[in-house]
């Protein structure tokens, strides 16, 4: 008889292991050269620690009790544990702090969807570096890491998590009426978004703006299309673009509708795309308020790449 393993998990055999290992080494080489020190944190954390991070779509799925009855979770994310490390082990250290990791994380899955329950993430966190300089550094390292991996046709979607809320503020949409809109946005349903916007009863021009803004994506020209109330977001994104090396600049696609499922993002957010793969390879963004929840307020930014997805994209590009 054949012993089974849980769906969404897998055994990695030597041929693949060799390639994954080489891939992680290339990423590590870039992180290390850029001064990001590698950390390892426990696979199990207290549930209360991880949920402090407002993980949204990445809420821990696997819980267990320890001997004292505490609830432990398999970590679903590396950013929150590293925020905890920074706040506790580096409580007095002078920022900026630079950390990197290559570690397995765990998320809940639906069966038969090809989703991974356990996956390898490699990424960096830059703590204590505000926008735009910190964002520019992290995006630069992201491009260097992807270049080092050998991926050729990747693009980076760049948006701002605060842009849509700012627009809602400016148009006077009350906080209690926003949830339906944000829900449609996160579930990528523009038909539903249009319905919810009409339900607000705004003037036609404002409604049009709310509907069109999250569908804006493309080169720097899309920033020029933003209304005056979004001048801050536009200027912030422009500063990031101008600060990037030319090679990285060419990879950027502005995407004003980018809504990552993690709840802790506050400013610039980004996703990594490659034509060889139908799903994003990784992403990241600014989380300027997360460290404060661990008692060490400072602005921060980081990214995580899905190593298995990166491997698939590399294999896809090679075909």
């Amino acid at each position, binding site marked *: 008889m054949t012993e089974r393993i849980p769906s969404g998990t897998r055994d990695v055999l030597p041929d693949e292991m060799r390639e994954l290992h080489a891939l992680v080494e290339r990423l590590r080489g870039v992180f290390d050269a850029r001064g990001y020190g590698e950390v390892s944190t426990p696979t199990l954390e207290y549930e209360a620690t991880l949920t402090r991070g407002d993980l949204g779509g990445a809420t821990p799925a696997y819980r267990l009790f320890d001997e004292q009855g505490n609830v432990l979770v398999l970590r679903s994310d590396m950013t929150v544990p590293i925020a905890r490390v920074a706040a506790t082990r580096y409580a007095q250290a002078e920022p900026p702090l630079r950390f990197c990791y290559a570690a397995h994380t765990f998320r809940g899955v*639906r069966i038969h969807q090809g989703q991974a329950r356990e996956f390898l993430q490699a990424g960096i966190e830059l703590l204590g570096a505000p926008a735009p300089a910190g964002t520019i550094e992290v995006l630069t390292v992201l491009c260097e890491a992807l270049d080092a991996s050998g991926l050729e046709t990747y693009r980076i979607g760049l948006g701002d998590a605060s842009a849509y809320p700012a627009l809602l503020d400016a148009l006077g949409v009350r906080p209690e009426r926003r949830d339906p809109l944000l829900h449609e946005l996160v579930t*990528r349903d*523009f*038909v539903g978004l249009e319905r919810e916007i009409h339900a607000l009863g705004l003037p036609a021009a404002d409604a049009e703006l709310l509907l069109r803004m999250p569908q804006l994506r493309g080169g720097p020209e899309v920033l020029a299309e933003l209304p005056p109330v979004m001048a801050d977001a536009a200027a912030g994104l422009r500063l990031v673009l101008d600060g990037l090396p030319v090679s990285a600049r060419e990879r950027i696609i502005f995407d004003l509708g980018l809504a990552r499922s993690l709840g802790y993002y506050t400013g610039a957010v980004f996703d990594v795309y490659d034509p060889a*793969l139908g799903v994003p390879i990784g992403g990241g963004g600014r989380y300027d308020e997360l460290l404060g929840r661990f008692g060490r307020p400072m602005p921060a930014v980081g990214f995580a790449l899905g190593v298995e997805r990166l491997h698939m994209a590399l294999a896809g590009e090679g075909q």
Partner: protein
Amino acid sequence: MTDLTIAVPRGALLSGTLDVLDRLGVDTAEVRANDRKLLFPDAGIVTMRPSDVPTYVEAGAADLGIVGKDVLIEQDHRAVYELLDLGFGRCSMVLASVDGEDAAAEALRRLGVMRVATKYPRLAHRYFERTGRQAEIVEVKGSVELAPLTGMVDAIVDLTATGTTLRENGLVIREEIVECTARLIANPVAHKLKATAIDAVLETLRAG
């Protein structure tokens, strides 16, 4: 017209879908003439069972897809963009039972739970949960109307356009759950990397 690959559902939405593609300047003659072939690389069309459209689009095997809202509600976990309500293929998702005294209401009253057959178990489950009723969902793959006629279930949740099939089988609509029309969906990565082409499609379709 474009370099986009489009997932096209065979079945009830096929002819409306091909009309939409004609407006986009896609050559659909070969698809219309050939109901066995699945892949039409020259036109950028892949044809499939309707419920498979979100699967192919989510995976990026197709950039765009056309699919009924019923399928999207049932598969609401799919990471695809829903871009446009195309307006055709209008149907209702309904709760129906055998004509006469409503067996489902009776079962709910006396037994506390009704048995409901459907091809849309997730949608049905959520509907009964939302309306505060206990229901035992029985998933069937086809001819849902048969299930209450044989006494296997008290009611069905199914899609109906004209109600003819329901009537012919002696079933009556008890509740309308949701209206469904054909929708244009997109793969999230294609939505970014092929933005110009996709926006051109949207503009043409919005212009009517």
